[in-house]
């Protein structure tokens, strides 16, 4: 193990992260436009997964309407920048805030619900958001969709996929940093506390309602930002993009990656965005495969891919395997 650490991260992780970042910065110019597009999509999915994982993995609140917040972010960004002529760099955070406000409005009644009731309500919210998109063609373009242009930066339109990729990379890194700091803050600890036991958390003076609301708001904000980026990356949005399948896919990202783990969100989103593209011959069966994968992971590997590394390492190092697995799982859950 290395001796130094940065902000509580072990030296090895810092070096590994820095190497990954260098690759993410240096490699893309050597690839084609399609790969830039795919990488951008993967990074947006990372943002979506991080947001959902904070709400579901850390704070323990089931949500099946992550794609609704994504839709709110996407349509708000498009409306503000196209119809109202706002700069994209103002429209995007504003869309995030609008999405966060919707998260607050949904979180408010959801405070009293738990477990599957919450799942039903979020599923209902998703359905309503779909209907509203279809019924408000003045804002959303209705079922026929609406086009969403690329933004300009310093006088240049980011029309090439490579330039927009770097913007998305920067925003993803910012998201990662925010999520990381958040989970180490008192609020982040409170999330873990209410997930483990609401009653115990309350006896420790964790404000239950405030904490849950915070989780909903933060998660919706990230989803809104991700949605705004998605709209201008793809260039065209319609309600089909934000249906229940998209929400379930985000759930698959975090379950396969690892619930409650930022590394898990990143891993799950990257792997499950790239893999379907590689296996495009099976596109017809994608939903089937995702469903099957979800079931297998839930039963066989409930802590997700992030729990796999420490397990393998423990097996390789032999003795004391169980102890190090437990320790690793604990650190993976951070």
């Amino acid at each position, binding site marked *: 193990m290395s001796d130094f650490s940065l902000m509580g991260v072990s030296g090895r992780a810092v070096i590994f992260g820095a190497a990954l970042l260098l690759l993410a910065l240096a490699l893309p110019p050597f690839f084609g436009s399609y790969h830039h597009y795919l990488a951008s999509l993967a990074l947006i999915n990372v943002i979506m997964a991080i947001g959902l994982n904070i709400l579901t993995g850390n704070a323990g609140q089931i949500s099946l309407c992550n794609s609704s917040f994504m839709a709110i972010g996407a349509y708000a960004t498009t409306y503000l920048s196209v119809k109202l002529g706002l700069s994209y760099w103002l429209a995007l955070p504003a869309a995030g805030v609008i999405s966060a406000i919707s998260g607050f409005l949904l979180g408010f009644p959801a405070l009293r619900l738990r477990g599957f009731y919450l799942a*039903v309500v979020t599923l209902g919210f998703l359905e309503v958001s779909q209907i509203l998109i279809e019924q408000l063609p003045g804002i959303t373009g209705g079922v026929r969709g609406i086009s969403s242009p690329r933004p300009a930066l310093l006088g240049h339109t980011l029309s090439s996929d490579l330039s927009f990729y770097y913007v998305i990379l920067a925003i993803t890194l910012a998201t990662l940093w925010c999520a990381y700091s958040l989970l180490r803050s008192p609020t982040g600890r409170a999330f873990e506390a209410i997930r483990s036991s609401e009653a115990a958390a309350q006896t420790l003076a964790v404000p239950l309602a405030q904490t849950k609301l915070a989780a909903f708001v933060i998660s919706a904000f990230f989803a809104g930002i991700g949605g705004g980026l998605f709209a201008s990356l793809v260039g065209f949005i319609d309600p089909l993009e934000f249906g229940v399948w998209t929400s379930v896919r985000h759930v698959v990202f975090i379950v396969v990656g690892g619930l409650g783990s930022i590394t898990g969100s990143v891993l799950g989103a990257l792997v499950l965005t790239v893999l379907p593209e590689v296996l495009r011959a099976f596109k017809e069966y994608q939903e089937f495969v995702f469903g099957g994968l979800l079931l297998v992971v839930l039963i066989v590997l409930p802590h997700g891919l992030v729990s796999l590394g420490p397990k393998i390492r423990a097996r390789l190092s032999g003795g004391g395997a169980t102890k190090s697995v437990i320790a690793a799982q604990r650190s993976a859950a951070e």
Partner: protein
Amino acid sequence: MTTSIVLQLIVAGLSSGSIYALVGLGLMLAFKGTGIVNFAHGELVALGAYAALFFSVVLKLPYWQVFVLTLIFCGFVGVLLERTLIRPLMRAPSFTIVVATLAIGLMIKNVLRLSWQESVSTFPTPFDELSLRVGEISINPNYVWIISCSFAIMGLLALFFRKNLTGKAMQAVSQNTTAARLMGIRVSRIFSLTFAVSSAIAALAGILMGPVVGVESEMGSVILKGFVAAILGGFNSLPGCVVGGLTLGLLETFGGAYFGGTFKAVTAFVLLMFVLLVRPHGIFGRAEARRV
């Protein structure tokens, strides 16, 4: 608005309402019997409709045989699902159950969509040709069939739980699994039976819905209406669920007629939020003490 239109709306509302009640009933049954909230239930409704479509269009069987065969087939599918996929999840936390059953639903939906590529999306019923007139009002006989069929099943179920020994055993298991096992009830069999009945009821909803709304892979979204029906009834009472479903059906139909499609589409959600916030234990339910 004339009386005849109001009457027609009532029949249409009761008919969709009784379907919602059936879907809710299946959900509630599985939950009470096994503690599993089955988010794949909507896809079981779709499975029933597709099975009926297959028996009717491909095998060209008459409606009554289609009816019986579909119920039996879907009952078996329910047992199979319970034995293979649901059983390992029974003690899992609610998040795992929700996500796993969603995954099962996703897989069923995809299989249905891929295995039925023909353009035919409806099957005939013996009621298509009939015309039913009460005075000057003509009523769709399919609606009457749906309403009477649903009510017959609900009545049978109520009898089954009150009078039949197996039905009583199911109730015992849902109240206290350990005690039921000690009384010599084969709990594992009851679990399978519960899922068989729940799936067969889902299939019945599918058979009844299919000819009216058309068979398609998105049919499963009716699960939300089923949830609303069951939650209106407190998620633990048979008559509550029936009243909940009928209320939703009538509200939707009349709301849609007076205020348009958007209103109809959001009725279920608004009703759900209202009930969960104002009377979370349902219209007829009692608040339950919760163990911390």
